[in-house]
């Protein structure tokens, strides 16, 4: 559903001036609304359908057999084409008699095939303010039906609920007049929120870096920010001590860097063996905080850079 937290942290650490301190893995609530509407489209006519419309509308030939004879096309083909025109709304049947509809007449006048189709689609709005999800986010994001997600690396996402009611009037689609709300439900979006110097950076499945839309959204939600700010800070000393001890690095003591990042210097030999090359300079994340793995040996660092560039 979402990449491991360390990827978001690495990206945040690489942001100039960000100085990330901790992160939250949250599930933000969205209203997932199924709407129905009529879509008007226009396309080029094909050949047979244009002439069928004309033959019925202007030539006043009202039955399939007559059309087949007049146009010199065999009857099953005309049947199929007429069926299609009926489905498109250009022709109506009354028993055996065909008539051209207003839509059909419009199409003939414009010499283009006008279509009106009943469509359904799903629209997402954030559950706090009802802000519609931007179009480009739809293909990238994945929503959950239940407020729970745990990743393989142990990250557990915490849901946040909204106190607002769903208002059908808040749903709009550009260029659509007869929008109808058919059903709605709450779905949850996994997001990493990284606390940085001037606000929270947001990371979702959208794109490869920050999600500016989510960041703007969250910045405008005092109730969300208050909840995050109220979380007690993690006991970083204990967390990393435990982790380092568990990995066998009892002698290693993490140090806070000038840019605020906690860094643990590991011996060179562990890279390329126990830890992958990519992890030198990368991060480990636990319980909302993170630590960078480092090595003092320059050749090892250079090797790690090369390996990273190759993949």
């Amino acid at each position, binding site marked *: 559903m979402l990449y491991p937290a360390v990827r978001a942290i690495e990206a945040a650490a690489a942001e100039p001036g960000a100085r990330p301190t901790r992160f939250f893995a949250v599930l933000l609530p969205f209203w997932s609304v199924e709407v129905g509407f009529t879509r008007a489209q226009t396309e*080029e006519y094909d050949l047979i359908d244009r002439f069928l419309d004309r033959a019925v509308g202007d030539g006043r030939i009202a039955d399939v057999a007559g059309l087949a004879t007049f146009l010199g096309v065999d009857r099953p083909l005309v049947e199929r084409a007429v069926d299609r025109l009926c489905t498109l709304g250009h022709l109506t049947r009354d028993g055996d008699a065909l008539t051209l509809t207003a839509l059909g007449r419009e199409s003939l006048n414009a010499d283009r095939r006008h279509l009106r189709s009943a469509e359904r689609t799903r629209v997402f709005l954030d559950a706090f303010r009802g802000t519609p999800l931007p179009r480009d986010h739809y293909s990238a994001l*994945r929503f959950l039906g239940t407020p729970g997600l745990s990743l393989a690396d142990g990250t557990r996402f915490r849901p946040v609920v909204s106190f607002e009611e769903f208002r059908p009037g808040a749903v709009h689609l550009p260029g659509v007049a007869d929008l109808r709300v058919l059903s709605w439900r709450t779905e949850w979006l996994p997001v990493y929120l990284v606390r940085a110097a001037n606000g929270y950076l947001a990371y979702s499945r959208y794109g490869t870096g920050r999600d500016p839309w989510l960041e703007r959204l969250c910045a405008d939600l005092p109730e969300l920010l208050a909840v995050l700010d109220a979380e007690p800070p993690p006991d970083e000393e204990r967390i990393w001590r435990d982790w380092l001890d568990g990995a066998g690095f009892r002698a290693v003591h993490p140090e806070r860097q000038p840019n605020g990042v906690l860094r643990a210097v590991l011996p060179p030999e562990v890279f390329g063996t126990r830890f992958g090359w990519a992890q030198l300079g990368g991060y480990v994340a636990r319980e909302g905080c993170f630590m960078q793995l480092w090595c003092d040996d320059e050749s090892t660092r250079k090797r790690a850079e090369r390996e990273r560039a190759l993949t």
Partner: protein
Amino acid sequence: MVATAGARVRLPGPLALAPGTRRVATQSELPDLSALMRDFGAVVPATFDGSELHLHTRRHRVVVRPDRDRRAYLVESVEPLRLRDHGRLSRGALMVSVPGWKAFPDAAAVPAEYRTYHDELAAAWQRLVADPPGVEATRRPQRHDDMCDVLDAVVEADRQLHLVRRGQGRTGSVPRLGGADDPAEKAARAQHDAVEALRTDRSANPGLLALIADGTFAPVPESTGAGVPRPAEPLDRAQTEAFGRAWDVPDVLLVLGPPGTGKTRTTAEIVRAAAGRGERVLVTGPTTGAVDSVLERLPADHRVLRIGDEGKAAAVLRRGTLERTESSALRLAPWLTDTSPAPSWLTELGRALADGDRAAVERATADQNHRNAVALVERRYTHVLTAARTAVERTEADLAAARAAVDAARQRLDGVAPSAEGWLGFAYRPMATRRAAELDRVTAALAEAEQEATRATAALTEVAEEIRRACATDPAVRDCAERVATADVAVSRTGTAAARAAAALRRLLADVVAEPPEPGKDTATLKRFHQWAAQVHPILQERARLLADWRDRLKEPAAPLPDELVRYADVVGVACAGLADRPDLTFDLVVIVDAGRIPLPAALVPMVRARRAVLVGDPQDLPPYPDEEVRGWLATPGAADPGQGLLGRSLLDRLARTAPPANRVFLDRQRLIPAVLADFLSAQFYDGLLTSDVKEGGELPLFTSPLVVLDTADLSEGERAEREAPGTELWSAAGYTNTAEANMILGLTQWYSRIGVAWTVLVPYRAQVDLLRARLGSDDPMSRARITTVDALSPSWALPDVVVFGFTRSNRAGQVDRLRELRRLNAAISRARRQLVLVGDFAALRAAADPEFRKLIGRLGEHAIRHGAVLPSKALRPLLADAWKGFAA
């Protein structure tokens, strides 16, 4: 609405709040209760934690408990909302509608009518806990979303496998992706689109995702057999069963059939029946060859269309239509333009009728003028005429009087005449004489009067004659008389013109309209005819133009007719890959042939386009990507198994594991390969269900049985051993060659070629293929093509008479690797129309490390001993030598 899991509770009365008595150590003092109450929304989420009731505002969690008298809630603490509170709310909360709140300084101040409704709330909470609403029923289960993610990953992995197979990934490095027009790119995009359709509920079969993820098939209705048509070709029992089930099945039917069981025939019948009842059918498969073998069994017209042929079909349609519409175009041609005959005649008719009306009016006027002129002339003679008339009258009157006098006189005379002749005649004679003289006198007067009368009459006649002459010579009267004559001519002329125009028009109309009315000759009917003709005229003009346009467009060879024909065709055939180019096509039924050979993501593309599907194939066929290829790819860096066992497999394979009996039919009668071979395959691969219906007998080349084993175990270990050919297989895996076997095989093929027997050599390794081809000594590409690996064999190639299969592996360690894929052997055995020759070191094979393979070889050996011919390899040479000698003789 807060949280998905809530239960609504509506309280009948307001709630009272008072500060709690127990001072719990909190982070902050209790805020002003009035301010707190303002923060409560119309609906308050509430949870229980033990006996504590937690009420929530947007920012705070308020812990309350009922006071002793159950009249008010005492506020114990107010905390800012924390993440854990949100978490708890997301899992379930009561939504409490509170009509109002009231704060009191302490519990004692609360009036008696307030209640806490604590019991109701607690009960509602119990109900919620016992039966949480869970995920809304409308939302599909998470595992279906997960399956979509898996499918997306399978699409990507599949693309990599395909690139490797195409030879771009031999060294194991990341293959370069082609551009947007690269067929593999298009295919991958189409496959991702299909997964997206599943994800967003846009698949034509709404239950397809559940079917793939959970194996949930829709219930099949009780088959009454009613309405199922008769197949056009005879079908056996199992084939008829498949045919009938395909008619009824609401979602997916699997038709599982080993080679030779009539899959193509059954498929064609299914397609024909479906098209017959108006369904739009897609026939698709891994190759165009597979699709064609079904399409060519269907009647050839534009209703059965192979994509790629639609241009031809469009050309045929164009020609045919132009021919068929030629005569109607000719008949409508008179209406084509505004200067065409028909409009001209119509206008003419209108004009003639209008002219006629005008002429009639003029005639009436001229008539009137004439009469006036005559009257004018007559007036001059009025006096004379009147005098003459009067004279006539007078004389007539005189005449009448004279006559009357004569009559009277005669009467008087007659009255006395008899008396004058009688007794006293003398007395009457003077009277009689007087009377007779009177009679003479009046008779003379009568004659005069008659003369007078005659003269008067003659005078009158003369006057009349004079008047007449005067009229005739009077210039004014003559002028008017001429005018009348002219007007008469005009009326007659326009009448004729109208009649002529009407007749001409009617002749034209009779060609295009069923029964045009008769124009008649008189104005009234002509006018009615004109009215009718004017009414149909614009429609006919429209039709004429329409038909002309239609024919003109048909003469142009340009689009879009071919695409359109594909949309209207009853049966459309295209290979899976070709469907990527036509995202607009949808169908009622999709039939996938050779479904066992299509990788699952590729099969999704047609499956999401149709409500129902029939998958036809052999479950024991080679999978789309054999295990070695999959494993080889998974070993490369960055490769990951998407999960669910989908990688490299076909959709047929996956569904065959989960389909209930109602959704699967096994075709159990094969008619292609010798029974000896089929019996082995049946026992080994098809649970003994496959039976044979073949004519045995006929001359077999060299050996007496359809199943022949040539065992190289009689050779020394060195002679029969394999040789490794490193890096000759995919993923730089090692291949193997076997010279002893190669020699034997070539000996056989030489003989077969000589006697004209169609042969194919199948071996498991490319290196052995290369070796055999190199030694073939023939430049004939056909012969070279007949030596191939099993994997490279296309199912749509014609079956050879003889298949020679060389096992190739011969080593001490019992390594058989590729041969472990038993379905390869199945594929090889089922390709021999008359005879199968197996060449291998059976001692080593029987001692193979892989237990399944060992078992198969053991059974194969037994079967060969019992029903076939088992020969040591050394026996081959003398056999061949005899055969050649016999040939030469």
